[in-house]
């Protein structure tokens, strides 16, 4: 690991992260790479500011205010009470006051007030309203890419103001004037053109899966299959493409395959929908998010599957659980031709879509899966609640199932489990620091600093309980932690997936 060009925050002596005194401008130099012409053109955006950029920005803001009640209400309702000021992991890790959720919101709110409210038009100085300037636009670009849209602030706001909604709108306006982010927008191009965020073409995917089948058989002596594009399979598994080749992601993919094998399930992956992730969520463009999600519907209709199961990925699960029904008709309760076409194909006995953890836990409860828990005895495990799963979705029938089900699985497959401090898990969980479209090397300083609150909580259980494994259900969390835990003195092998633990302990029969 090369020496970083910035100061890595010091771990505290406890599980908690001290609230720093504000240091104005400490992160103002952060600027993610700007998207060049090709991805912008593909997404239908300009790639440089035109003379009328200001009018375009205000115009787009007006459109979004008319389309999204969240944005409309959140622009008006804030009273500057300060409840959110110490809740963002990026503020806690960087001390830059513009990383306080309210200040991040104010970057847009001051422009909203100036152009859309009476007091802002007649007495801007009184209410903190300001003209939209190039400087403000640059601050938007910097600070709307220092938010991982994790929604922790929305838990603590007395009006439920969700900064993620404002960040998404901010990024959409930036895109609209020609300031897109390279990382996210290139991925949005790849997923639409090739089928997944990594740009892995169908034949390469097929090779990878064959290789994995051989590895599993060599390892276990059991011929566990990883079917691709099987017409008429019962289950379509949609998983983040990182599961196909990144470590430790691939260990979880092996885990899913073993679970399907042990259950005797008929399942398939799809080369057309070889990506659960949907970066459309991050950029506040409904149409793009819908287009990306439609690949799943198209693949499901084409393959004729009866069930759709989603692999370990946080934001993908939020989009699948909360938005797929809206975007693509995958779900129940629609009474229009578009959703009926999809619903009549799906097996109504099951939740649609279903999280892989719901699937596995269901089988464990039915006694279908057998484990040798001692095979995980070299691990003392803790579980990190991924932000999008924790605060933007659910598993099972009861609110909070997204917290209990993954933990129940871990406890069913391993003997040593310890939770991190209560204030850092569940609905109060801290983002890994890499979510929401910031998982790029040009934002490594942000990612390391943003991981501080989680690292403090992890460090505490590592010291006190001997925890040596951070179990995850998110591809972004896995990639982020693998990269940043070494900055805090931990080995990257301590990072892995819940189904990696399942894979270790599951007993297979031919």
């Amino acid at each position: 690991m090369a020496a970083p060009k910035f100061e890595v925050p010091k771990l505290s002596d406890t599980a908690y992260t001290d609230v720093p005194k504000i240091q104005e401008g400490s992160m103002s130099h952060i600027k993610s790479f700007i998207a060049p012409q090709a991805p912008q053109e593909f997404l239908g955006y300009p790639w440089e500011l035109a003379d009328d950029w200001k009018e375009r920005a205000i115009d787009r803001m007006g459109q979004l205010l008319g389309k999204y009640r969240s944005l409309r209400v959140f622009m008006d309702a804030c009273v500057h009470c300060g409840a959110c000021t110490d809740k963002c992991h990026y503020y806690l890790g960087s001390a830059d006051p513009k990383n306080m959720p309210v200040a991040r919101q104010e970057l847009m709110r001051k422009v909203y007030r100036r152009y859309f409210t009476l007091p802002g038009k007649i007495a801007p100085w009184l209410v903190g309203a300001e003209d939209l300037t190039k400087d403000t636009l640059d601050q938007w670009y910097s600070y709307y890419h220092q938010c991982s849209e994790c929604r922790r602030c929305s838990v603590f706001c007395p009006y439920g103001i969700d900064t993620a909604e404002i960040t998404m709108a901010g990024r959409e306006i930036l895109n609209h004037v020609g300031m897109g982010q390279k990382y996210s927008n290139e991925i949005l191009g790849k997923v639409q053109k090739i089928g997944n965020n990594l740009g892995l073409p169908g034949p390469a995917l097929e090779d990878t899966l064959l290789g994995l089948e051989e590895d599993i058989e060599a390892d276990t002596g059991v011929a566990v299959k990883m079917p691709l594009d099987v017409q008429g399979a019962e289950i379509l598994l949609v998983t983040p493409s990182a599961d196909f080749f990144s470590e430790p992601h691939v260990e979880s993919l092996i885990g899913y395959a073993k679970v399907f094998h042990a259950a005797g399930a008929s399942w398939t992956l799809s080369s057309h929908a070889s990506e659960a992730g949907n970066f459309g969520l991050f950029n506040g463009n409904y149409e793009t998010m819908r287009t990306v999600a439609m690949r799943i519907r198209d693949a499901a209709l084409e393959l004729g599957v009866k069930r759709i199961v989603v692999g370990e990925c946080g934001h993908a699960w939020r989009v699948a659980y909360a938005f797929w029904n809206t975007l693509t008709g995958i779900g129940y309760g629609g009474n229009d031709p578009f959703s009926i076409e999809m619903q009549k194909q799906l097996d109504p006995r099951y939740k649609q879509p279903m999280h892989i953890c719901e699937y596995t836990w269901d089988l464990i409860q039915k006694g279908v899966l057998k484990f040798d828990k001692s095979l995980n005895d070299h691990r003392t495990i803790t579980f990190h609640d991924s932000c999008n799963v924790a605060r933007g979705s659910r598993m099972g029938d009861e609110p909070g199932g997204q917290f209990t089900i993954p933990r129940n699985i871990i406890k069913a497959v391993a003997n040593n489990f310890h939770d991190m401090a209560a204030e850092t898990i569940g609905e109060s969980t801290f983002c890994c620091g890499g979510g929401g479209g910031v998982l790029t090397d040009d934002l490594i300083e942000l990612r390391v600093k943003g991981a501080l609150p989680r690292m403090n909580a992890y460090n505490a259980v590592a010291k006190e309980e001997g925890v040596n494994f951070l179990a995850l259900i998110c591809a972004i969390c896995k990639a982020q932690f693998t990269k940043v835990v070494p900055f805090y003195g931990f080995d990257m092998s301590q990072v892995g997936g819940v189904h990696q633990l399942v894979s270790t302990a599951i007993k297979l029969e031919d």
Partner: protein
Amino acid sequence: MSALTVFFTGLYYIAAITLIGGLAYRIYEYSRTPAPLNIPTTPAPTTRVGVSLRMAREVVLFESLFKSNKWIWVFGWLFHVCLALVLIRHVRYFQDPVCEIIAFIQPFGMYASIGMVIGLLGLWARRFLVDRVRYISTPSDHLMLALLVGIGLTGMSMTFVAHTDIVALKGFTMGLITFDWQPVPNDFNLLAHLFLVALLMLVFPISKLLHVPGVFFSPTRNQVDNPRERRHIAPWAAALDKEQV
């Protein structure tokens, strides 16, 4: 009628129309803006009844604020509860005869004014003492607190220091709602109190006081967590489906 009475009578009609009309417009605007996606902050209730209870806890107990910060909660909750008692007490100026509940609440409402001002001063102190809150405070945040403290202090001065001519005041207020206008008592504390209250009514629909209707329209709080069972779709989004089929 004296110029003073004409001024205050006119002021109160304008303030009332602004407050009611402005709020009605805002509520109309919020309700007609679609919420295209299901975005409750989870864990969230899975039924409408559950959401009503969540909203009730939010509005009555400030549940999220309690989770967040005990100091803001103590001062904020004290202020709002006391303000509610004070407002209910003031119904007596618009009722003749005064009903039992309002009569019963009278002493509580009188002392609640003290709690109200303490709550406000606590919130105001945070704007100076906590660096993060100082950073986000705008001039209008301070002026809003000054306005509310001013209303509280002028009101309390009439309750605890020098009583105003309460019979004449009631004549004035009853006159406003029966359109049988009566002179406003010429008492400085009272006139200051009435003026500041009218100012508050005027700025309500164009200021951060919109958090009052806003909280009820917040999608992260008022939506049911049932996206797999119910298709949640906005009219502008449904139009996209039609292109597909």
